[in-house]
């Protein structure tokens, strides 16, 4: 099994979900993150004092998948979150040793 982690633009969540659902993924986990990379930040001003905000809001999307599906899912995520501009983010996959569905205690691929 694989865990696919995507750090992408917050406004792309909807597109990713639609893509994954169309592909047949049953579940995913989302959380908030901030990222620093090639994308330039913006400036905030408070009483004339400027702040250069370069940690920008991102979301982290995580999907557990079988080894076979992992690469397809990677492609779905990339194609639905790509805009071609800096700040699009990174996606990576890692091996998962074991997975369990808490409700039933099923393990391995059955748990996904």
């Amino acid at each position, binding site marked *: 099994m694989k865990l696919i982690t995507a750090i992408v633009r917050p406004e792309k969540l909807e597109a990713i979900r639609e893509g994954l659902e169309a592909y047949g993924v049953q579940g995913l986990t989302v959380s908030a993150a*901030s990222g620093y990379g090639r994308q330039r930040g913006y400036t905030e*001003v408070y009483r004339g*004092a*400027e*702040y250069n*905000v370069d*940690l920008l809001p991102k979301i982290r999307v995580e999907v557990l998948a079988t080894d076979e599906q992992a690469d397809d899912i990677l492609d779905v995520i990339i194609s639905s979150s790509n805009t071609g501009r800096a700040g699009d983010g990174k996606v990576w996959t890692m091996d998962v040793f074991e997975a369990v569905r808490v409700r039933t205690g099923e393990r391995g691929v059955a748990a996904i």
Partner: protein
Amino acid sequence: MELTAGLVWLLVASALVLFMTPGLAFFYGGMTRAKAALNMMMMSFVAIGTVGIMWVLWGASMATSNEDNFFQIFANPFSHFGLHNFTDPADLLKVGYAATFAIITVALISGAVADRAKFSAWTIFTPIWATLVYAPLAYMVWGGGLFSKDGWFGQTFAPVIDFAGGTVVHINAGVAGLILVLIIGNRKGFGKDPNHRPHNIPFVMLGAAILWFGWFGFNAGAAATVEQAGLIWINTLAAPAAAMLGWLAVERYRDGHPTSLGAASGVVAGLVAITPACANVSPLGAIALGVVAGVASALAVGLKFKLGYDDSLDVVGVHLVSGVVGTVAIGFLATPTQGQAGLFYGGGTSQLVAQALAALMSIIFTAVMTAIIAYPIHKFMGFRVSQEQEVVGVDLSLHAETAYEFGIGGHGGSFQPLHDLITGNAPASSQDAAPAAGKTTEAATGKESVGA
């Protein structure tokens, strides 16, 4: 002249009404997305600035009755320019009271264009609109113009009953909001984007509470007698109370859940409806009027999705609809004790016709005038931000601020001590000024970025 009881009340009422505009800023600001909350509030705040100054300079003069008027539409803007030439000791108090009405009417419009109006365009729009739309309508209804007992309309039909601003304030703002929406267009994702839901409902309730509190000044500020003041006070309690229950009942039976946003909205709808009628209906009439307004507005706020115009915070659904309800209801509910009786009290249809016609004429006047003002602004300087600015959020893109920062979970960033720019000195020279300043400048290497 020593202070009299009536003038002390006017003094208090004026402060109450001024307080309503920041209240509105919260009512509206809580309803937008977090990333547009400050901009929403700023539209109300800056209206206090622009309309307040404009009113002192020429607005008060335009709205005040005197010999020298323009076709019963507005008075000479220069006869009291800068508030000189007033002779009655109480005149400045009355000007202050009137200023607060002009301010909030303009601020009300902003709800229609939440999340996307350009702040610079809004800043220019507000004093012009107050000059060309608000001041004339105020003159026509209250200043001795067209709709008053001395005006052509008043003498042809009947003088309009609009005690505290059903036409002048609410219909006026509602129509202007609608026209602005039609000119500048819908928000990106209108009707689909779940992030368009309110980001801070306690702020909406705070706003509603401040509005209600201030509305006692709004409605009763001009009360002439104890009897009238008492009646207005009770009606200003009863109508919104009834409208709140009405709105909640609609939600309960239509959606299954009475909501707090609904309660706050119902209160405002009831306040809007009772505004023109507050001195002319009985307490039972106020309850009836409140229920009707609450139900009508609760049903009306869904219309924008059907008709496809993005009146973001329902200026039309609440202010125009309940403003018309209140204005027209006077034709039915006006009690005989306070002048002309309504249809239900044996007064015949004459007042009803006058009310309906005046509402209609106000709608047309405001629609045409607002288009004439807003369209060129939109054409030549742009009245809305770019799509990218909308996605980033108008707070950041227009004001370089974010409303909240609760810690690591929020935005973050590097502090760039560009303060040297503030005073115009080069960093190098300031380094010698004082130890702490030196420390500050040292930070300008851009390495101290932190946050999340």
